C-alpha cells in the first residue's frame, strides 16, 4: 500500500515504514535507547530526504519512549529524581550543542563531523560495553560474585542526594555533568542520546541496569520533544504522516521490547546492546572508508 507523504514529498510503502517503526520500537523498549541512530539511516535507505528523516524520527522516538516508559513505570524501574537531574543537565547541554552545530554548519563539513562522532562514540561505547559484559558473564558462570561498587572521588563531592530507586547516595554534580555532555553530543549528532546515556549511567554513575533503561527513556522523551519542536519551527521538516506510520509500529514494538527485555539478564541485555552499537558503528565506518558507488549527491541550494 503506497502512501504519499506531504512534507517529504515522496510516496512510500506503508507496511515498510510500519515495519521499521516496529523493529526500532522493540530495540528501544529492550535497551532504553531511543533508536535515533538506527531509524534515521533506515529512513534514508527507503528514500526519505535526510532533513525530514532526522526531524520525523525525533517525533517517533517521543512516542516509542512514552510507550516504553509507561511499561517501566508500572514495574517501578524509573528513577524520576535521577531522570530530572539528568534532564536539567541535558537541556543546558543541548542548548550548547545547537550553538556548536550552527558554528560548524557555517564552517561546512558538518555531515562529516556528525559521521565521525557516530563512529568514534559508537565504537568506544560498544567496544567497552562488549568487553565488560563479556567479563561479567564469564565471572558469573565461574560462580564468582561481582565486587561491590568502590567508593571513589565521586562519593566525596558535595550536594549529596538520595536516589532511592537506584539505591544510590551520591552528589548531583556527576549526573548533571553526564546529562550536559550527552545533551551536547545529542544535539550535534541529532539523536536522543540514549546509546551514550545508558552506558554513562551504568559505568559512570553506577546505577543498576534495570533502572537505567526506564530512566534513560524518561529523559529521552523530553529531549526529543524539544528537538521535534525545534525542527518543526525552524526547518518545517516534521512529516506527520510519516511519524504516524512509524509510531504505530513503534509503540507496539516498544511494548513487546519491554517484555522481552524483562526476561533477559542484565549482562545479556548489555552485550546485545553492545553488539548492536558495534554493528551500526561498523556500517558507518565502512561508508566513510569505502569508495561510494555514487560520488555525487543532490541537495537543495543553501542547505
Amino acid at each position, binding site marked *: *500500500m*503506497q*502512501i*504519499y507523504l*506531504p*512534507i517529504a*514529498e*515522496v*510516496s512510500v510503502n506503508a507496511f515498510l515504514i510500519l515495519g521499521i517503526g516496529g523493529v526500532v520500537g522493540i530495540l528501544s523498549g529492550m535497551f532504553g535507547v531511543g533508536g535515533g541512530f538506527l531509524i534515521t539511516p533506515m529512513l534514508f535507505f527507503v*528514500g526519505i530526504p535526510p532533513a525530514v528523516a532526522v526531524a520525523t524520527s525525533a*517525533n*517517533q522516538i*517521543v*512516542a*516509542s*519512549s*512514552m*510507550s*516504553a*516508559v*509507561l*511499561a517501566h513505570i*508500572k514495574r517501578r524501574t524509573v528513577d524520576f529524581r535521577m531522570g530530572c537531574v539528568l534532564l536539567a543537565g541535558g537541556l543546558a547541554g543541548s542548548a550548547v550543542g545547537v550553538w556548536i552545530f550552527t558554528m560548524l554548519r557555517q564552517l561546512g*563539513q558538518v*555531515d*562529516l563531523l556528525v559521521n565521525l562522532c557516530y563512529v568514534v562514540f559508537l565504537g568506544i561505547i560498544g567496544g567497552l560495553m562488549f568487553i565488560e559484559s563479556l567479563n561479567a558473564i564469564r565471572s558469573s558462570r565461574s560462580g564468582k560474585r561481582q565486587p561491590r561498587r568502590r567508593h571513589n572521588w565521586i562519593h566525596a563531592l558535595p550536594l549529596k542526594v538520595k536516589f532511592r530507586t537506584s539505591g544510590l547516595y551520591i552528589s548531583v554534580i556527576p549526573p548533571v555533568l553526564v546529562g550536559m555532555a550527552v545533551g551536547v553530543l545529542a544535539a550535534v549528532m541529532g539523536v536522543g542520546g540514549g546509546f551514550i546515556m545508558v552506558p554513562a549511567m551504568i559505568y559512570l554513575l553506577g546505577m543498576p541496569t534495570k533502572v537505567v533503561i526506564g530512566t534513560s527513556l524518561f529523559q529521552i522523551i523530553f529531549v526529543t*520533544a524539544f528537538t*521535534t*519542536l525545534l*525542527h*518543526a*519551527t525552524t526547518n*518545517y521538516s*516534521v512529516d*506527520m*504522516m510519516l*511519524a*504516524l506510520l512509524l*509510531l*504505530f509500529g513503534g*509503540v*507496539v514494538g*516498544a*511494548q513487546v521490547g519491554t517484555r522481552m527485555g524483562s526476561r533477559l539478564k542484565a549482562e545479556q541485555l548489555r552485550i546485545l546492546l553492545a553488539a548492536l552499537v558495534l554493528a551500526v558503528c561498523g556500517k558507518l565506518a565502512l*561508508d*566513510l*572508508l*569505502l*569508495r*561510494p558507488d*555514487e*560520488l*555525487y*549527491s*543532490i*541537495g*537543495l*541550494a*543553501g*542547505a
Partner: protein
Amino acid sequence: MVRLVLALILFALPVPAQEIVAGLSQNRISISTNFDGSEILLFGALKQGANPSDPDSGVIITLEGPRVPLTVRRKDRVGPIWVNRSSVEVDAAPSFYAVNTSAPLERILNFTADLRHEITVGEAIRSVGAPPDISDSLAFTEALIRIREENGLYQTNIDAVTVREETLFNTSFILPANLVEGVYTARLFLTSDGEVVTQSSQTIYVEKVGLERFLYTLAHEQPLAYGFLSLAIAIAAGWGASAVFRYIQS
C-alpha cells in the same frame, strides 16, 4: 513565464503555414494520500502542409516540472575517508523533465535548435556559477541528470510519439510517485530538417489535496501548532499502546 509570453505571441501572430494543436487527458493532477504516480495523455493534430511522417520532420513533446536551484556535491578521498569536497550550484533545474519524440533526436533536431529552445534535458538545466577551483563542472551536471534518470525524474523516450495519418499524434508521460507540486509545462515542437518549425504549449497544475494539503499548509503557516500537534499525537499513541497492552495482559 517567458515561455508563456512567447507562446501567446506565437498564437497572436498571423496563422503560420504550419500549426500544431493539442489537448491533454487532464490538466490538473491531485496528489492525495494514495497518490502513486500518474499518467498523462497528450494528443493533437497538425494543420496544413506539415508532414511528420516525412523522414526529415518530427514531433517532440517535453513535459517540465517547476525549476528549483540545487547544489550538487562530489565526494573525494581525504586521507583514508571519503568526504563531500567540492560542490557546484545549479541555478535552476527542473524537478521533472521528460522528452518524448517521434524519431531519434539526432535525426529531427539539430544542436542550434536544441540550444535555442532548451529541448533536451541537458539544455533545460541552467548552471552558471561553478567555483574557479572546479574545472570539470560539466561532470556535476551530468551526475545530476544521471541520478535523476535513475529515479525516473528525467526521461528521454525516443519513438514515444505516435503519428497517425500524417496529422494526428499522441503520446503519454509516466509521472513518478515522488512528484513535486507546482505548475508543469508541456511543450510541443514540430521540426523539419532539424529546425523547429512551430511550437505550442500547455499547462498542467500538480497540487496536493485534502489531508496532504491541510498538513502541508499547517506545517508552513502554523509551525508551532503543528509541532505541538505532532507531539500530542506521539504522546497519545505511546500512552494508548501502553494502555491497550496492559488491558490485553490483565
